[in-house]
């Protein structure tokens, strides 16, 4: 198993005002799998993604990635874990404003050991002609494609996407989903995507629903469709 979570718990707030966000999550993900997390606001899906991504720590429980126990790693090791294994795509892109498109992708490439060709990524993502532009010269979809490029260029084992289409219109969202699907197929990385949009679950291998901090449903998608066919 590529990723394994055992009884992950996480709460926020002080003793008098504690909110249990994750209340014992068990999860296994195979390498190359495309998993979508659904659930209402506050269900704990983003928190779970942050714990998997090593940018937040669980209060208890264990997490293994590629055989290594991430939950016991120290800060420095967590940094290395993120550096070597993870790619991140956020709803709000988080591009570095004073770097060009190419350079933003190189921000990711700099970290990897078996990185993909930046020009190749620019072509795949349809960004070649925008390579020398700054983020503020791009549309939202172009910025999100750049952020995907930054995430995949280092050839990560795990791509974490937190509401990647949350800030985009319908057609741009579809373009982005096609891109993520292509990345999954072309580079074989495992993708965990958090979304509010239930329709997106139709292009995933598995759909996991969270409710009140626990996995409510964990369903393998028997009728998976391609992003090109997806409509909502």
């Amino acid at each position: 198993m590529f990723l394994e979570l055992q009884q992950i718990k996480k709460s926020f707030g002080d003793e008098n005002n504690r909110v249990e966000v994750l209340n014992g999550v068990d999860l296994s993900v195979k390498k190359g799998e495309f998993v979508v997390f659904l659930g209402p606001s506050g269900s704990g899906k983003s928190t779970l993604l942050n714990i998997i991504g090593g940018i937040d720590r669980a209060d208890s429980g264990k997490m293994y990635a590629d055989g290594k126990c991430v939950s016991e790693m120290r800060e420095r090791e967590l940094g290395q874990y993120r550096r070597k294994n993870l790619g991140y795509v956020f709803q709000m892109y988080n591009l570095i404003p004073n770097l060009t498109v190419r350079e933003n992708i190189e921000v990711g490439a700099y970290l990897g050991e078996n990185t993909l060709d930046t020009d190749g990524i620019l072509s795949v993502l349809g960004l070649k002609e925008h390579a020398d532009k700054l983020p503020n010269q791009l549309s939202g979809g172009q910025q999100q494609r750049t952020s995907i490029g930054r995430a995949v260029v280092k050839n990560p084992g795990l791509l974490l996407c937190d509401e990647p289409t949350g800030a985009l219109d319908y057609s741009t969202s579809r373009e982005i989903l096609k891109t993520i699907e292509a990345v999954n197929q072309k580079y074989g990385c495992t993708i965990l995507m958090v979304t509010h949009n239930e329709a997106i679950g139709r292009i995933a291998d598995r759909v996991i629903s969270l409710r009140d901090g626990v996995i409510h449903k964990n369903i393998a998608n028997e009728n998976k469709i391609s992003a090109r066919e997806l409509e909502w």
Partner: protein
Amino acid sequence: MVKKNPLRKRYLRELKGEFSKYLIIFLLMTFSVGLLSGYLVADESMLKTYDESFEKYNIENGNFTAKKQVSPEQKELIEENGIKIYEQFYLEKPLTNGSRIRLFSPRKEVNLVCLMQGAMPSAPDEAAIDRMYANNNGLKIGDYLTIDEEGGATYRITGLVALSDYSTLFENNNDMMFDALKFGVGIITDTAISAYPARELTFNYAWKYLEFPKDDMEEKAVSDELIKKLAKIIRLEDFVPGYLNQAIHFSGEDLEGDGVMMIALIYIIIVILAFVFAVNMTSTIAKEAPVIGTLLATGYTRGQLLLHYMLLPIMVSMAGAAIGNVLGYTWLKDLCAALYYNSYSLPTYETVWSAYAFFMTTFVPLVIMLAVNTVILGRGLRHTPIQFLRRDFHAKKKKKAVRLSPNIPFITRFKLRVVFQNVPNYLILFAGVLFADLLLLFGMGMPNLMNNYQTKITDSLFANYQYVLSAPVSYAGEDENKLDEIIKGLRFAKAVETENPDAEKFSAWSLRTLGDYARTEDITLYGIEGGSRYVKGDFADGEIIISASMAEKYRIGAGDTFTLKEAYEDKYYTLEISGINDYESAVAVFMNRQTLNEMFDQDPDFFCGYFSDTKITDIDESYIGSIIDIDAMTKVPRQLMHSMGGLMDIVNVFAIVIFLIVIYFLIKIIIEKNEHSISMAKILGYSEKEIRSIYLHSTSAVMIVLIIISVPIIMLVLKQLFYMVMLEMMSGWLPLVIDSKLCYITMLLGFASYVLVTFVEMRKIRKIPMDMALKNVE
């Protein structure tokens, strides 16, 4: 009911959140305003005290020294010339501490004494001495003064005083500079004075005009007339009209001239502070852009928001200015006054409320703060609500990226982007660095300059001794200025002839510059013997040679003409310069003796002094006006260092504080501007070292370049400033030489300040949380 703006609730939170920033601004503002206020209040109060001292202490209009005590009949004759005279006999003695002291009998009517501490002497073995002289020599009340001669008396110090006619301790009115370390004055009782035989006393008399002349010209005419009349009544040994008395006027002139530099210095600091503040607030505006967009969209006006963002800096500045003024009027005033008290024997001052000081220290700094912030923040807030909401500040003109070759290593390109992003910040940083450099080079360079000057003086002294002869004033001639006293005395050629084989005669004349573009000063013109062994150069008939200092100060050379005039007459002399010699110790003109004597209608044999490498012992002391030796020449640098040493320390501390503050704020801005990116870089797995390398080391490289290029630039500025100061504020000339070692020290201090700040700011990078990038604030 008027609704209060709910945004006001943010002020306290903002103040708490950015406490260190506001504290630094507050402290710097308080200190700057405090120092300026303290300085202006001290300066104005002292100047007022000084001005009032003429009336309060009934300061003389002049004084003369008679060979013998003036008889009642002579007194009557003298006073028929429109003056009233007052005895102020003194004895002048060497002390066992190596200095000389002039002890006066108590003053009862004129030149009254200000008792600053302790009591006036009441017993014959008691003395009250000048406060500054006491401080300089480590003497305090209860200590003893012992006269350094066989059987010399001892006096117990009962009080510290300021003699109103010795606010500057000039031993001799012809001295180039006063020496408050080796010369002092004091008061002993009448009984103590009368215990000395008449031969040991100096019969000095102060005079007051019954009707004071209306200006300097008239005063000169009256005093010129007076000296001739006095000479007919008594045997005069010295004659110093009030307007020429350096001991009375030097301090007042200095007090009047110092303010401009200090005001300029503090205002530059406030302008830099205002810029740093405004740029800092602009980065807050950028950070809060969506909130501003929302507020504008919901009906808040740009003016309200401008006021909102400006209010805290202005309030902090106002608080700084208010507390600075309080400090200025209390503690710092005394600190600044101490600088004057370190140089001058001024009477106790009374603090005056100065509307001018308040205006300059409170109103003007606030206006500077307000103007700079209004312009910069106004620009930052000029966007539309939608631009703020989208953080799209370049909607009309999309900013293009500077093209960087992909062949440049990625991290290098990243660092370059950080540099490009912060060019405006670096410009402010550069201004701050330049200013701090200027202060440091000035503060550290001054002692260096003085040492260098001292060496130059020692190296370029014509002879070990330069004797300026003083004709007994009883032979004062028909007219002319004070040098005439010397000139006329030479009629007693026999009395001033010496057998010393080393002695070489010279003649001299003093003329004044016109002061068209510089402060007026008296320049000595020397008439040198042909084939002189002391002054190098051939002085052909009619040839005028100027000293290197004069050439440098007035930027004149061979072939140029230069006009000088008699100090108190409308008589002009235009000199055509034939060459420049290498004399750097004074602004002076040289020619052969015959040329000088002809120029001033003197006898061909006329001379007024000797150069000599050995002491001349066969001329009566009463014919010697002054002796210029190494000790006398080095009084200038010694006294300047003594007077300004404390100020230099303040300047150096200020410089380093400016370095630290400017660097701190700008690095803070750079980090805050990029904290979102830094947070993202952390998420992506960049190590802290890599992040530091990108965001701090890029600035380090710029900083190194800025510091290196700033020093030669500031050297040029300093040279020009120094030249202007010398030209407009000082007599004489100090060649500006700054040791290259000081340039390196300045650079090192700049780097050290940067390293220190960077060290502090590293913590800030470490503290940026990863979840910052997760918040939807793009």
